[in-house]
């Protein structure tokens, strides 16, 4: 069973529908027992980093996620859920993340060329990059496939774990992987067939 972690942040409807469309057995819950029982975990999230981080702490889900990830359970963070995987974020002050992937989350504004709009909203192409072997989570998609992005912050200092970037005047971190922890800055559940294929590959990881 794949668990969509419900910690009071964001809209889980699309994600649940996407998994059900793929025929994946999925559940939505924030109960620690459900997290322990699940074969794999999806951490969604929309909104502000600090608020989401606090909700994870209040539920004790932060420790639990760290334990589950350490035990090798596949975990995928999506959008804000991906940003939470890093060491820290600088959205409205500095907030510590889950330390599951080395790196930090910074506003994109100072890094992109003048004239580029913020947020980065829309369909943009994934680039797997040179030297990085193609991640198993991308086995059903190709370099250049477009995904739907909506974000004003992006992960930096995580080159060693970056499995895809996207070009927005400069390369932005689009996806990361450390062992069986995956992070997707875009919304696979809103990225058409290609996005569903990423979720499908993730749900096949045993």
């Amino acid at each position, binding site marked *: 069973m794949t668990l969509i972690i419900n910690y009071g942040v964001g*809209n889980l*409807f699309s994600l649940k529908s*996407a998994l059900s469309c793929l025929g994946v057995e999925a559940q939505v819950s924030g109960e620690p027992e459900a997290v322990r029982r699940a074969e794999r975990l999806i951490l969604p999230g*929309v909104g502000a980093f600090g608020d989401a981080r606090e909700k994870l702490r209040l539920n004790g889900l932060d420790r639990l996620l760290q334990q589950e990830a350490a035990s090798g359970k596949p975990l995928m963070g999506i959008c804000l859920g991906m940003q939470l995987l890093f060491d820290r974020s600088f959205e409205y002050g500095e907030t510590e993340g889950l330390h599951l992937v080395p790196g930090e989350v910074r506003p994109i504004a100072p890094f992109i060329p003048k004239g580029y709009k913020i*947020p980065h*909203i*829309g369909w*943009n192409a994934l680039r797997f990059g040179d030297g990085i072997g193609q991640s198993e989570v991308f086995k059903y998609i190709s370099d250049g496939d477009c995904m739907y992005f909506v974000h004003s912050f992006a992960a930096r200092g995580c080159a060693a774990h970056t499995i895809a970037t996207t070009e927005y005047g400069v390369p932005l971190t689009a996806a990361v992987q450390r062992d069986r922890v995956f992070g997707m800055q875009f919304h696979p559940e*809103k990225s*058409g067939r290609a996005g569903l294929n990423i979720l499908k590959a993730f749900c096949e990881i045993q």
Partner: protein
Amino acid sequence: MITKRIIPCLDVRDGRVVKGVNFEGLSDVSSPVGLGRFYSENGADELVFYDITASSEGRRLFSDALRAVAEQIFIPLTVGGAINTLDDFDRVLKCGADKVSVNSGAIRDPGLILRAAKKYGDQCVVLSADVKRVGGRFTVFAKGGRENSGLDAIAWIKSGVAHGAGEVVLNSIDTDGVRGGFDLELLAAACEAVNVPVIASGGAGGIGDFVRLFKTLPRVDAGLAASIFHFGEVGIPALKAALRENGIPVRI
């Protein structure tokens, strides 16, 4: 490179698409799910569902239809029409909408944009404006273009973005239905004024109008249209192929 978005807009009354389309192989031309799937499989980058229902029963049917679409179609969904309060935002977001577009509701209550952006994030709030030239000035109209609000369009969208609107849809009443192309003058002024995505609406008559739009105004992010897609005059795959031939980045 970020791609230019092509967005079909569907008018929905009592949970059914009005002015249903006429495509081969589509048996139920007024089913929001059938049409949504058709567009999604044929290259649409996003769908806009516009609720033109007048009754509360119709509103309930709209919610059911939206939920059915969101369960089966995995591209961004924007909902507009009859959005006047935070409860309206809540209602459509719970049914699976990703973004909510406000128009007359924000003219009546300009604080709505700020409250919605604070609660749901800027990316969720789309400011849609119906604009017409009055005495040579771009002026915002309310109630589906029937009522002159007296607001200057450029000042209005600037203030909407300052309060948290994450995208702007500009519908030109002057070019709407004429099929002579988008209102490039209005769009240029809007792109100059705000630094969030600008979506062009009103006036598309054929593929050439989209090519001209993105070539003339590279800062425009998306083109929205209804009838030319619904009547099959312009197929989105052919449109995107033409855009790509002209060096305009699109998702194929």
